[in-house]
């Protein structure tokens, strides 16, 4: 391409320029027209809307995005708002617990499923079906199960165990664990499927070699198989992580941020300020913070996956 362009320019004159234009714009025309929706999506939504959001987060827009530039004022207000700070703390605690437990349980279940067991597909069906359900459905079912008067707590008390307490969704200090129970219920099966695919991808020869060397099974998993599954692990972390940052529907359905504001999350903060709080600048500043979080997670991953190509393989 570059060669021909140079050649055309040597020809000089308007004819050469026209040839260059044709080369750049008309070459491969049907493909470019066909890819127009993708190009438009990338330019308008993924680039354009992101820049728009970041720009207007520096304005004092309230009901309409027309405010004037106020620098970091929205961000200062954001981090002075207890609701936002609680949202961030919640996301960090929930996110850390959810990530660690999803990966651990997913891996553990995958290892168990990989022991040439019977009814493997039945177990997989049982573990994965929650993943097909909406977060709203998940949240509402668990809300009912954890209902303090008529759910598990009420049932056990009626059966005679009067000291039984399981009021996590009504208890500000425990509500994140209630969220966790529902979140794990939906997500662990998916993680298990990913991990199982990773385990099955490990060469049998590795296992034979480890056995001949007399390495105990658990040691083989921890020291040999897990490092070999690096790709799957990284993918799982990225997928689970980006899901956690997005956490919204589940909270809306299970607790709606309550009791009080003890289970608020950033995505809900953004929504509330944009669409019912009438403070767009504030919502956009919160959205920009979410974007920043994802960039902080994604850049090291992208670097490891694509930047370090020269190092690996």
């Amino acid at each position, binding site marked *: 391409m570059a060669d021909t362009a140079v050649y055309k320019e040597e020809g000089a004159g308007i004819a050469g320029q026209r040839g260059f234009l044709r080369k750049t714009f008309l070459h491969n025309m049907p493909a470019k027209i066909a890819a127009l929706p993708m190009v438009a999506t990338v330019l308008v939504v993924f680039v354009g809307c992101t820049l728009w*959001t970041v720009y207007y987060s520096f304005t004092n827009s309230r009901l309409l995005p027309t405010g004037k530039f106020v620098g970091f004022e929205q961000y200062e207000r954001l981090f002075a708002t207890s609701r936002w700070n609680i949202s961030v703390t919640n996301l960090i605690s929930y996110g850390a617990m959810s990530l660690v437990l999803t990966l651990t349980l997913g891996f553990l279940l995958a290892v168990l499923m990989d022991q040439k067991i019977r009814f493997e*597909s039945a177990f997989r*069906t049982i573990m994965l079906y*929650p*993943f097909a359900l*909406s977060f709203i459905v998940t949240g509402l079912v668990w809300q*009912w199960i954890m209902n303090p008067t008529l759910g598990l707590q009420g049932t056990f008390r009626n059966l005679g165990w009067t000291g039984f307490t399981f009021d996590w969704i009504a208890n500000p200090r425990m509500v994140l664990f209630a969220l966790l129970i529902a979140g794990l219920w939906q997500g662990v099966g998916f993680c298990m499927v990913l991990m199982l695919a990773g385990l099955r991808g490990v060469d049998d020869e590795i296992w034979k070699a480890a056995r001949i060397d007399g390495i105990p099974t658990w040691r083989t998993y921890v020291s040999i198989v897990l490092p070999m599954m690096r790709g799957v692990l990284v993918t799982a972390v990225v997928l689970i992580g980006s899901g956690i940052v997005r956490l919204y529907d589940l909270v809306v359905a299970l607790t709606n941020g309550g009791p009080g504001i003890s289970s608020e999350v950033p995505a809900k903060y953004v929504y509330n300020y944009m669409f019912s709080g009438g403070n767009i600048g504030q919502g956009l500043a919160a959205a920009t913070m979410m974007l920043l979080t994802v960039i902080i997670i*994604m850049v090291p991953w992208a670097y490891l*996956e694509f930047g370090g190509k020269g190092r690996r393989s």
Partner: protein
Amino acid sequence: MSQTAIMAGAAPETGTGTAVEPRGPRPKPFFTPRKIIIYSVLILFSFYFLFPLYVMIATSFKTMPEIRFGNIFALPQQINFDAWVRAWTSVCTGLTCEGLSPGFWNSVKITIPSTIVSIFIAAVNGYALVNWRFKGSEIFFAILIFGSFIPYQVFLYPLVMITRELRIFGTLQAVILVHTIFGMPILTLLFRNYFASLPQELFKAARVDGAGFWRIFFEIMLPMSLPIFVVALILQVTGIWNDFLFGVVFAGTQNYPMTVQLNNIVNSAQGSPEYNVNMAATVLTGLVPLIIYFVSGKLFVRGVAAGAVKG
């Protein structure tokens, strides 16, 4: 396990001549302590996964007095469809009291066109990215994939303004547009990887024979990509059906999908809550993805794992 296999493999060598020598691997007892542990852990987890499904269905068949008696484990005394009828036809979902059925039809009206449009566009994208690369096409693709990890909240307000400018805000078209946009990264990745795995000779031969962009797409690529279409279909139908955020922001009150109406039934109900109706409505909302899940089986697994396959 493989040790016994190796020994078994060696056994016939040593045992040549004597006909009574047992062959094959030594039969293992089924109830080894190891197996008992494995199965008990798996069964324990199965209870955790199955319990909500049981509770949902059992509660939906109970009457309110039965529920107030307070045993969530109990089977319904008799199968009672009243809650289901009420959930479908007459429970209040915010402004109106027509049950979940309008929400169901809204979800159908959103899911079908969104699925078709998003899959078609993504298939064309994938095909263009593999066979008709143009300057910058890989960069666009990279941004597309990176963009899929950005939280939707970042795009929400600008998209509201764009759809307002297009005069489709608060209509089904707006939701369909948004689903098409946000389905594009994963689906394009799916189709790109699939088309890249097809033999390039097919495409080249068609080019030599003078077929153009669309002809090759419709007559060669599409007929060969049925499996990936099914995977994309499962992914999109369940994903769009389960969506809450886009429905609540872009659809407008008249067009709220089933998930939004379900949440309204339970969380903004006035008066004393009817748990049996709530659970019947929940089962009804979960039914479509569940049916797809149980019918499609392994294809669903392929669909959800598709996001994990890097290209």
